[in-house]
């Protein structure tokens, strides 16, 4: 890199720089490290410090007035809470279900919307639109649509003679219903990322494949799929991380109910916070941190390794 840097004398032909700093470091990399600093300061103060101190605070009994060190008592209490085991499992179900569906639907829609179908512009807009609407608003809307008796979904199912379940009131369904709404809301973003990835694939590959007589399916399998891998890894990571931490939609739709059946770790944390158990709530944060990290870090390393191999 540095080999290509110009000697200072060559600059005399160009207009003066706004900063005029270049003379001091002619042989330096053109990519200055201080670009990291402003973002780094914010990140350190408002994210790293709270996160690191959360490990300490999770070991305390913490109220508005004082902090008392109590060891692992919060964690013990947290794992005794019946809602936690349920919330713990639900977090995985919700995360993997939403992320898997977003990848599959996002890829299919991405391929469809980069092909020459009619109404492409309309479809792109309409699929992406739910991303824009307030999560809380979406939650309330589907709460009304999913009403077991009067809701539009069960009314429509009734026309076909199907007796729809109590989407949000039946403990067996509540979590999955919220997950489906989350996919409805988030698939537009996944599609957008896939569209960007797919149009970035050079057309020459498709031409070459076509000359070689490859079918559309083989083109998809051997060109689109591997070459849109960066898009796939972005979609997988973002939706998994979002899914495992998901709170807003669940809170708007079920508040973790009925009972604890649609609680996830994030909603348990919030309930503890509301109750004023700050230490306990922070312990929940640490647990969620560990859960998410244990899943996402190995996965992202694997995805990045495959990305490099491409």
């Amino acid at each position, binding site marked *: 890199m540095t080999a290509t840097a110009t000697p200072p004398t060559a600059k005399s032909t160009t207009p003066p*720089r706004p900063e005029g700093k270049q003379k001091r470091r002619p042989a330096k990399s053109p990519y200055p*490290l201080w670009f*990291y600093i402003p973002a780094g300061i914010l990140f350190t103060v408002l994210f790293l410090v709270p*996160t690191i101190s959360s490990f300490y605070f999770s070991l305390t009994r913490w109220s508005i007035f004082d902090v008392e060190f109590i060891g692992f008592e919060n964690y013990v209490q947290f794992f005794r809470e019946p809602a936690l085991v349920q919330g713990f499992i639900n977090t995985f179900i919700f995360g993997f279900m939403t992320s898997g569906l977003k990848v599959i639907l996002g890829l299919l829609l991405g391929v469809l919307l980069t092909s020459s*179908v009619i*109404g492409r512009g309309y479809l792109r807009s309409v699929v992406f639109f739910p991303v824009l609407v307030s999560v809380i608003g979406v939650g*309330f*809307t589907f709460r009304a649509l999913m009403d077991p008796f009067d809701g539009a979904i069960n009314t429509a199912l009734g026309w076909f003679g199907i007796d729809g379940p109590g989407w949000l009131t039946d403990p067996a369904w509540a979590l999955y219903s919220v997950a489906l709404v989350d996919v409805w809301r988030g698939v537009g973003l996944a599609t957008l990322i896939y569209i960007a990835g797919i149009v970035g694939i050079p057309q020459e590959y498709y031409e070459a494949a076509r000359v070689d007589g490859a079918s559309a399916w083989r083109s998809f399998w051997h060109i689109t799929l591997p070459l849109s891998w960066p898009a796939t890894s972005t979609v997988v990571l973002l939706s998994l991380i979002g899914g495992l931490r998901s709170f807003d939609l669940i809170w708007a739709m079920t508040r973790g109910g009925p009972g604890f059946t649609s609680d996830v770790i994030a909603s348990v944390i919030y309930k503890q916070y509301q109750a004023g158990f700050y230490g306990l709530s922070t312990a929940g944060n640490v647990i969620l941190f560990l859960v998410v990290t244990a899943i996402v*870090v190995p996965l992202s390393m694997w995805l990045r390794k495959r990305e490099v191999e491409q």
Partner: protein
Amino acid sequence: MTETRVVTTQVADGQKPLKIRKRRKLTWKAKLQRYGMGSIAILASIIVFLLPFLFILFTAGKDRQEASLFAFTPPSQWMLWENFIAVLETRNYMVVTAFWNSIVLTVVAVSIMVILGSMVGYVLQRRKSRWNPLVMLFVLAGLIIPPAVVPTVWVMQSLELYGTLIGLILIEVTFGLAFTVLLIRAFVAAIPKELDEAAIIDGAGSMRLFFTVIFPLLRGVIVTVIVVQAVTVFNTFVNALYFLPGEPTVQLTLYNFLSQSGNQWNLLFMNILIITIPPLILYIFFNRQIVAGMTSGAVKG
């Protein structure tokens, strides 16, 4: 259909196609895909995506009694304007205050986020330094780790940022940075490094290189980042709840119409309509640029 149709099973703007042997077969298939798949997709999109919004509109136009029935019918008497006024007047024009707060929050936070985020994403992709693993670790940490709520409140209190709009702006920037950096880094990778080298040979310094060569090329992804982050920040719910108590933001106004004594669904849905307008305008305004930006980002030498 001209000859160019032959190769357009994928987007192929302005391409000069080679004449290919299996032309007729491909055309037939392309047509099937174009019209068949398109029709199915449009029909499905109406049911899955448009009907819920029609429901919001219908319910927002009903009176309180009728709205509580959840029926998917047009209101027997349209009351959009009355409900609109009723929502505005609720709790002493709280929606108006909330709108102002949310718009200031969104504009300032997203601007800072885009500039800081693209600086990091760019250097991170371009320069191999020993800091990269650490920065990448922070980016992933920022994406992965759920913010520790109470300790963050504690830090903000000691900086006297707690409960202020500036505090919430900085929080949104911090929480949004990781995603911004990740997205921009991925797109910087698609910009040929030869461009940098050419600019350097032409005598551009690092600031000039970034702001006049790279930054304009990032336009497509930056528009995407702006739209996505603006929507995220505008729709922020939990962060506002935790870090800006006492000052309303738009999402919190929805809860005005839920109460133990009975929900006012008509006003609630009217409120959803009102707070969806700014993201909608943003999207209509940027829609073409999103698609154009992303397609142009794909153009390679």
